[in-house]
């Protein structure tokens, strides 16, 4: 079976990983409580989505 001829150097390995960064999640401000929530998601703080209570939050 084929095998790697050389160990991948740190530089080469890290260069490969240079493009693997995870992008930041875009957040929106809740119109009800002002907390941040993901777009197209109900607010995790107050449970509102588009001006309507969709889930109850029990803290």
């Amino acid at each position, binding site marked *: 079976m084929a095998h790697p001829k050389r160990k991948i150097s740190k530089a080469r390995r890290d260069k490969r990983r240079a493009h693997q960064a995870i992008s930041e999640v875009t957040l929106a401000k809740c119109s009800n409580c002002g907390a941040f929530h*993901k777009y*197209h*998601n*109900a607010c*995790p703080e107050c*449970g509102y*989505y*588009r*001006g*309507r*209570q*969709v*889930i*109850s*939050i*029990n*803290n």
Partner: protein
Amino acid sequence: MRHRVKGKGLSRTPAHRKATFRALTKALVKEHRIVTTVTKAKELRRFVEPLITRSKEDNNLNRKEVFSALQDKETVKSLFAEVGPAAGDRPGGYTRVIKIGHRQGDGAEMAVIELVDFNDVQPEAKETKKKKTRRAGKSSTKKATAPAAIEEVAVDNEAENVVEPIENASESNSVTESTKNIIETLEMNDDSAGEFSQKDSDEE
């Protein structure tokens, strides 16, 4: 010519998938509102919506068709007694899927799927507002109203400015009151509903 792209397999055999949709439908018809994964919720629409369309007209054939899909008398009964008539003239789109974040444990994205006809509270005003802002062509009318509102505020006395927020607060209170009641009835977990109402009163 990529065939078999419709629908999601859900890592199940066809029989297992069918059983899953039956169970979810049974729960949805009974509770009018269930929490499941986004994928299942979205797939469930393909299964339930035709059944609700069938249940709008009560006749032998429709009942037979719906029963053959569900194999559950009680669900068929409540479909034709409640859900179908409530749908009325609605041309499809009987369900609403709202994402509610991730499940702890496996990190699956969760969603609420609900029957629109049983969960219509008061989003109408808000929704139409949002739709208006999205239309590029209608922005002119919005611009026309927005500066007028700002001018009004500027002209108004301080006393009136004080009165306005209070009115808004009472409005939002009544809104949360009505939604709270609905949620209390919908929630299986009474404790969570109680805690929620407590939190609400604190805010007041």
